[in-house]
């Protein structure tokens, strides 16, 4: 990686001698390399290659004792074993089901409630401290009381997940509605839009960038809450798998669990969150730039 580092830096600062004609002198391999660098997949996944290599190296050199740290081959073996036994697919689908319920209900509750609170200035002011307070009581702190209420069940996990998602979401909706430039509402009104049209065509899209941020934050918290709930409630799921493995001292399974969690988040980010953000915020060229004009 260091060999590629220097040309790029020189290109940026323009300090390097013979900046022009340098690319031409290099051969086909260089051009291929440049093309690779420009591709999105390479740029996002490429950096993981040296990290895995480092992990491998640390394991091979036995820097840490075997009972604390295992290398990629062991983890891959474990993956094969758990896949074969059907444990991993089962736990994975349990975790995803919970996440699905939590996110689904969270969005279903948080979005309408958020807009309802945001629409009136008075209501907004009255609800703001309540939202802040509920956001402040960390979602995981609800786990014990919810266990008292619903026992060790799916409802418990769902409740905590919904909680984690609803409050950041509502806060972001309220903040997003407040950020919609007043001029835009005025423009729509003076073009003949009624209240409903202003809401649908100005307020909602104007708040979307902030809402997208809220969904991201909510999922980030929800994700963690899921793992914590699975550890504490402890019946099934990836979080449970990791903690159970830790209890019996199976390091490779703990490592595997983390790798699975990471891969899942990556998929979630790449398949759902990022496209949504690209379709709204980036396509519209950042609402903030507009505001700065005003």
């Amino acid at each position, binding site marked *: 990686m260091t060999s590629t580092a220097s040309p790029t830096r020189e290109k940026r600062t323009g300090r390097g001698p013979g900046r022009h004609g340098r690319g031409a002198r290099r051969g086909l391999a260089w051009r291929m390399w440049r093309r690779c660098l420009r591709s999105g997949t390479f740029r996002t996944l490429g950096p993981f290659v040296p990290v895995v290599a480092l992990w491998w190296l640390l394991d091979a050199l036995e820097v840490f004792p075997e009972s604390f740290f295992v290398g990629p081959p062991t983890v891959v073996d474990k993956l094969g074993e758990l896949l074969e036994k059907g444990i991993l697919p089962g736990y994975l689908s349990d975790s995803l089901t919970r996440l699905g319920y939590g996110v689904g209900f969270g969005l279903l509750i948080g979005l309408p409630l958020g807009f309802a609170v945001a629409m009136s200035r008075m209501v907004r002011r009255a609800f703001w401290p309540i939202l802040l307070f509920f956001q402040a009581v960390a979602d995981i702190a609800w786990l014990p009381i919810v266990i008292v209420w619903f026992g060790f069940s799916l409802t418990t996990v769902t409740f905590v997940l919904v909680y984690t998602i609803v409050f950041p979401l509502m806060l972001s909706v309220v903040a997003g509605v407040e950020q919609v430039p007043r001029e835009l509402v*005025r423009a729509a*009104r*003076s073009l003949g839009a009624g209240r409903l049209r202003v809401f649908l065509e*100005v307020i909602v899209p104007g708040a979307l960038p902030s809402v997208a941020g809220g969904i991201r934050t909510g999922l980030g918290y929800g994700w963690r809450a899921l793992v914590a709930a699975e550890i504490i409630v402890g019946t099934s799921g990836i979080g449970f798998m990791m903690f159970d493995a830790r209890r019996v001292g199976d390091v490779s399974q703990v490592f595997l669990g983390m790798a699975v969690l990471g891969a899942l988040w990556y998929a979630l980010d790449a398949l759902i969150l990022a496209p949504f953000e690209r379709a709204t915020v980036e396509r519209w*060229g950042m609402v903030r730039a507009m505001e700065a004009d*005003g």
Partner: protein
Amino acid sequence: MTALKIDRLNKVYTDTYSGEEVTAIADVSFTVREGEFVSVLGPSGCGKTTVLNIVAGFVRQSGGTVVVDGRPVDGPGPDRGVVFQSHALFPWKTVLGNVVFGLRMRGVPRAERNATAEEFLKLVGLDGFAHRYPHELSGGMQQRLGVARVLANEPAVMLMDEPFASIDAQTRRKLQEDLTGIFESRRPTVFFVTHDVDEAVFLSDRIVVLSRRPSRVREIVDVTLPRPRRWQETAELPEFRRIANQVNDLLAGDENEAADGGARAGDAGGEPGAA
């Protein structure tokens, strides 16, 4: 025909924190005829934008009346389209989506509104950009779009709030010429707020010069320059310089009074109304 009639307009703000009362507009009256281009000019902070906001229906006046097309103003409405200094284009709608917005609100069928949009995009020189997003346009193009969006809605009055203030000098001249061209060909009624004397003289049929706060109408200046106007020729006319100087003197006189300060400030406020 009178398109817009402003009568004894008065606006008093109450500062929410201190509870102090601030008079932004003392007493402003004037009319705009149909197909006329009237500019409102005044020293910065004199409340000219407040007048526009009241006409647009964004802000409620404390006293006096505003009548547009025979109806008193009550809230914003499509009969008064506003071109904002910040453009206020909907970033999530394409150029076309912005232009047809007003027509959609009125329920104009798609084919018809697309035809209208095309016509007005052509008028402001944006044909071929229909499917771009506003942030992909230059500042000048964005403001043309702002004008097209309002004109396509065929308002009784087009209200323009320092529309070219945030645009670089060269582009501004071009836009002023284009606006004059559009005005001369289609004759919309325009109410234009600015602090740029040359701009006001170049564009307007009449200029309403306001005093500093609390504002009153200091004088209404007729601009008798021939149309069509082009910067190159119009700015050369002795008449152009004369009117510009006259307006500049009016504004400067106001500042001198302000500089004289305290003792005379009281009656200085009363004087201009009589002038």
